[in-house]
């Protein structure tokens, strides 16, 4: 008797739940963009018989059903929490570490890409023997802060990859900017990396800058003060893994101390044709991707002109680690041309000629660089 009642109740609950979810899914409006995932969500696909026969319509409709499910973000959080309760330490390549840190795994380099990059770098230096060329390859958090990784986690040894790379380009004539020792020295008194994002903090960028100055023969002339402009930043690692791990990040910007001989720069983005004198776009702090406060994201090329005494023109070839670093360089070069090989399809040789480039700086973080194939494509064109 009781068993019958239980089954009947289960049946009724099921009908109610399915009906409610079905109706809500139909009635609630579709979302177009997921801030957490930084991607466009699938909209209702058009039906076409040929697409149905190829199976493409089915895939799109299934993606639509998944992307537009009611309370989607809530369900994703539920899954992450369940995983954590179960003992999981990693999701999508991101580890939950000690001291409230999230850190990305160290991926093994893609040897084909790295070899291609090396040969194109070698050729590039040969093409421009008179230009001074520097390479700052930054280590990642899981390398420098490896003591914070959870007890049983071992990551690949990034240092061997970096050592091998540095020795190669050193032979080609590049001056290596290796910040590992200075980072290790500073790691206990400075937060070098974000807890929830894969970038270095502005403090970390500044430590790297000081080391770069030594290698590039730059005299630091400006004193800066740092200001926290956002205190609840949750970055890429949070988005990628779904783990919040207990502590948000602060984003800092560095402003020159009053009284220093700081010259304002003019920054020009050629793709949007926008000009500005501000390095920091404070409006972007409210966006989901608050790291864009540092500007310079997703532009193929932009230029910075500063009325300094220097007559040097610098070309920076970079990934997003450079965004918080470049403002410090502006005071030492009359002109800086910043190029991102992932979006830049013009001829780099023209850029060098027409801007009278005298020095070149490559700035990448290891994890990204060792999986990158766009640098080789740009240099060997």
């Amino acid at each position, binding site marked *: 008797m009781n068993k019958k009642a239980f089954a009947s*109740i289960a049946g009724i*609950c099921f009908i109610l739940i399915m009906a409610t979810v079905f109706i809500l899914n139909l009635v609630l409006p579709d979302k177009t963009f997921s801030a957490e995932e930084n991607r466009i969500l699938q909209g209702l696909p058009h039906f076409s018989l040929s697409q149905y026969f190829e199976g493409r319509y*089915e895939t799109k409709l299934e993606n639509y*059903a998944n992307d537009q499910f009611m309370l989607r973000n809530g*369900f*994703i959080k539920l899954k*992450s929490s369940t995983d954590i309760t179960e003992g999981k330490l990693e999701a999508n390549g991101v580890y939950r570490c000690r001291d409230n840190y999230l850190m990305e795994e160290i991926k093994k380099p893609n040897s084909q890409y790295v070899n291609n990059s090396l040969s194109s770098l070698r050729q590039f230096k040969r093409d421009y023997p008179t230009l001074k060329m520097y390479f700052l390859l930054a280590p990642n958090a899981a390398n420098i802060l490896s003591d914070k990784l959870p007890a*049983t986690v071992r990551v690949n040894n990034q240092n061997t990859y970096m050592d091998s790379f540095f020795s190669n380009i050193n032979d080609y004539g590049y001056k290596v900017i290796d910040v590992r020792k200075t980072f290790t020295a500073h790691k206990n008194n400075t937060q070098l990396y974000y807890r929830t994002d894969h970038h270095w903090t502005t403090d970390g960028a500044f430590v790297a800058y000081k080391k770069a100055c030594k290698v590039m023969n730059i005299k630091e002339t400006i004193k800066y003060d740092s200001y926290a402009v956002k205190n609840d930043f949750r970055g890429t690692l949070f988005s990628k893994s779904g783990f919040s791990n207990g502590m948000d990040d602060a984003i800092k910007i560095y402003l020159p101390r009053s009284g220093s001989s700081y010259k304002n720069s003019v920054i020009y983005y050629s793709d949007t044709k926008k000009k500005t004198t501000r390095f920091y776009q404070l409006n972007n702090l409210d966006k989901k991707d608050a790291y864009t406060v540092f500007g310079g994201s997703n532009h193929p090329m932009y230029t910075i002109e500063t009325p300094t005494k220097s007559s040097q023109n610098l070309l920076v070839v970079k990934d997003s680690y450079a965004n918080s670093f470049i403002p410090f360089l502006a005071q030492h070069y009359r002109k800086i041309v910043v190029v991102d090989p992932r979006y830049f399809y013009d001829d780099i040789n023209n850029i060098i000629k027409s801007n009278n480039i005298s020095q070149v700086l490559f700035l990448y973080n290891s994890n990204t660089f060792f999986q990158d194939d766009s640098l080789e494509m740009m240099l060997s064109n």
Partner: protein
Amino acid sequence: MLFSSIIFLYYFLPVVLAAYFIVPKKHMKARNIILLIASLIFYSWGEPVYVFLMIYSAFFNYFMALEIYKEKRKGGSGKRNMLFTLIVNLFILCFFKYFGFLMDTINGILGTNLHYTALALPIGISFYTFQALSYILDVYHDRTKPQMSLLKFTMYLSLFPQLIAGPIVKYRDVADQLEDRTITLEKFGDGVVRFIFGLGKKVLLANNLGALHAAILALPDSQVSIVTYWIGMIAYTLQIYFDFSGYSDMAIGLGKMFGFEFMENFNYPYISKTITEFWRRWHISLSTWFREYLYIPLGGNRVTVPRHLLNLMIVWSLTGLWHGASWNFVVWGLYYGVLLILEKYVYGAYLEKVPEWAQHVYAMLIVMIGWVFFSSTNLTVALHYIGVLFGAGAFPLANMQTLYLLRTNFILLALSAVISTPEPLAQFKLLCKNMKIPGIIIIFVILILSTAYLIYSSYNPFLYFRF
């Protein structure tokens, strides 16, 4: 379409259930039409071109069964028609499933390099072909009357609860249910509970165990250890059980929701004490199919001992081959054939005298090693893996990776091991007898968590722009 997907659970299923139950009970024909249309849509969703092949198979077998029946009614044997039907059905199956295997074997033996194109395997072809064969053979042997209605027969063959992953439903087991089936709220609720348990097994347990197994297989040699490979083997053992039995549970549960009673396909196979017992508990619908339609016609065990051994080897190598078109499946099948022979003729009697826990260890070891053959891409890979398990290759007993895997998967493994026994379900039934609310909550927590995991699989952070 998969049962374990958002589009099935929350779009397809509610619509089909609603359409089905809106039609009043007395219009069974209309309800059957709805089920048929739903099943064709369900199948064509995953196979937009090969749905026509399945429809063809339905029509062909329907027509030929009537031919055989007519011929027998006139006094003929129907044998030629039956053989013709068998050959065409098997030809279709072999054309898609075994053509590549055949060509590779020929190339290997003759040293040639004949070029061929391997076609994609239409989903469920092994299942519906075997269902069709059971129908034809039963009609030929007068074990069932042929189905007069093309509609009902096609519905039987394409019925979406069991089309893609079984259980293999013999026509004669459901013939009456095609005509008439009663559905009560209680039966519907039973189906719901069964379905949700199956969903949880698949999404919460099997998928995660599979991720663990895949991660272990992907480890480079420098990180492999003996214990790690044991964990991998245990993970796969549990994964395949929950995957397959979970899907069968969902099939049986869905069937119940529409008024069908299908036979059980799994009966806690991992509590077996012998291999003979194991095969009475694992994939029951397949082993009974082979028993009835191949083993017994070959003579079964009512023959001389050498012939009996031959029968067993034939049946088991084909059982292996049914699972996949590759030599490691054949080896897997023969592996069990040999063990069953040994249990029957060599040490079966001694085995019964051994303490139960030892029998259990024996059975589980055999089964787990069998899964290594089953899951490896080829024999060399399988043998290498098994070698590592028993110390070959000088791998360490355990390392940091082992600890990491244990730490992050202990709850999953422990939970899975417990749920593979009958205890938890028995306790659940006891709980529901006394108090209904906790039981309901458990069921719907499983549903909600499964939904969360399914949605998460579409979570795809695209961070390219910022790198």
